[in-house]
């Protein structure tokens, strides 16, 4: 572990602080969601728990079950991002993952990158998806792909770590500004909808009898 911080590591830390400040400002501006008053039929907690567990399963929602390739690609990209954030955090303190972990990271980055590029192509090629897309959708995807690519290279060639850190810093600093903000705001959104469905007794609910196409 190195004693002093490298310049890219300092940039990464500054970017993280800026990002946290940005997200904090968004959350403050958003305000509080008032507690529900109507007497509950089910449990809000059960709905929230469902929203953050089972609801992520491929069979839980038609958006996943009817679009398995996109669902799998999305999962792969997000796993790649989480792995990149973890690797960046380690890099700040100068830690290097063991060879086996490094191999797994390389695979995760590689899969995430391939899936990210596939989703980019899908957005550009699908007329319906293109109709609801904005330039930032392509930029955000490309930025994530660049970070995953840099992470892959840095895992295989440690000399590329500073480039990975700088690109990672760009991603982290940008996160509160564009669509990547969903990485934190979806926690609020998912919690809010989960609580409503839980209080009303709609979710969780046994789906085996619902006949939903899964």
């Amino acid at each position: 572990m190195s004693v002093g911080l490298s310049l890219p590591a300092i940039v990464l830390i500054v970017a993280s602080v800026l990002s946290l400040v940005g997200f904090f400002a968004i959350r403050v501006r958003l305000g509080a969601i008032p507690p529900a008053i109507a007497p509950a039929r089910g449990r809000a907690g059960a709905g929230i728990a469902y929203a953050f567990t089972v609801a992520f399963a491929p069979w839980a929602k038609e958006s996943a079950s009817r679009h398995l390739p996109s669902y799998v690609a999305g999962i792969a990209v997000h796993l790649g991002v989480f792995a990149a954030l973890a690797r960046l955090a380690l890099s700040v303190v100068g830690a290097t993952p063991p060879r086996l972990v490094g191999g797994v990271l390389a695979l995760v980055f590689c899969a995430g990158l391939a899936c990210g590029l596939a989703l980019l192509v899908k957005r550009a090629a699908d007329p319906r998806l293109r109709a609801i897309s904005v330039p930032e959708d392509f930029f955000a995807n490309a930025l994530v792909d660049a970070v995953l690519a840099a992470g892959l290279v840095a895992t295989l060639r440690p000399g590329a770590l500073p480039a990975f850190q700088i690109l990672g810093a760009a991603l982290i600093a940008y996160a509160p500004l564009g669509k990547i903000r969903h990485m934190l705001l979806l926690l609020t959104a998912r919690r809010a909808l989960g609580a409503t469905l839980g209080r009303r007794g709609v979710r969780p609910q046994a789906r085996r009898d619902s006949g939903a196409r899964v």
Partner: protein
Amino acid sequence: MAPVSERAPDAAAVERAVAVLRSRLDARTAAFLSSCVRCGLCADTCHVFLADGEAESAPAAKVERLGRLFRRHHTVLGRLTPGFVGARDLDQDALAALATAAFGRCTMCGRCALNCSVGLDPAAIVRFARTMLGAAGLVPKGIRANADLALATGNNMGISREDVLETVAWLEQDLRDTLRDRSAAMPVDRAGARALYALNPREVKFFPLSLSAAGAIFHAAGESWTLTSTDFDITNYGYFAADAAEARAIAERLVARAQALGVEELIVAECGHGYRVLRWEVPEWLGRPLPFRVRSFVEVMAEYLAEGRIRLDPARNAARVTLHDPCNLVRNGGVVEEQRVLLRAAAADFVEMTPNRADNYCCGGGGGMLAASEHAAKRVEAGRIKADQIRATGAKEVASPCHNCIDQLMELNKAYQLGVEIRTLAEIVADALVLPGATDR
């Protein structure tokens, strides 16, 4: 003078809508708007999109109509680089397009919310868009007229107290004749009754059979109940217009009436949005719990059955029957299994449609669409998914615990030549009632 909804929005209307977007956006809706990643995977969860295949009908497209405006007024990049994030100012064209998306392509059924990959609620976003449109005077004239009539007269059809009393009087006589029981009653304005049974005005005006069915069931269960001759309306077109003050004012009339009668419980007749509003929304609007319990008549009937207060003979409903799940009662209200328990007991051949329960498709008539005549063609087109579901069951009857859905299903029955009978749950249950020793007393 043309109705407000038929006029092109002017600059003042645009300003009023923007003012709502700037000042009245709540945290929940803002979180939803901030979270959409425009993945588009919600498209084929929506009955409107499945029916017309138009990109503009995908929930993400409807969300994006407001999302662009949200980013312009509520995000840094939207202010600095609007083109990059697809943010735009609201103008007359964008407002008109928002009106078509929010009132003409969405019933706010919430099926997309259950299936959104991120976990946001597009229906809540559309509801906020409707609030903006209301400020701009762009609520469809039929919804506007029904809300105004409810505010002026206490019910959305302007039915007078005298008409209610007259209708109930002949229904009571008919009930006594049918049951051959002189003690059978349809009490009105009876203070001290345990429960107030509140109605959809369509029952009084067009579907008295569902009202007399309720009377038979209450009588069989030995319930202490009453109707009210004034302020009986459970519907709320202010809710469809997403005008919180108006919706609250409409609901307050019924709440005040129930309090004046001193009932312990408000039983909501078979009406999906009426149940949702009174059970789930009104306490939030008033900022306090209601001083009486609120249940759907579906829940009450199921309780009667479970407690042995009514007995049912399924052989009396021999035809195959299927069940439509009203979105506001089931997916947005949580009343899911009670109607199934009742149908299994009251009908010999009950079959589910696919999918069902909270996953069922909207009939296409929700969200005030039935009152928005300018969107009638789209409403019937969107109902094709429901028609296909019904046809696949081979059922001869369709039960639906919602008068709004029943109106739409009756129209689909004609448009798609389904050849089925559409009935309320109470009518099916009443036909199956086993009444002990009815006599002329």
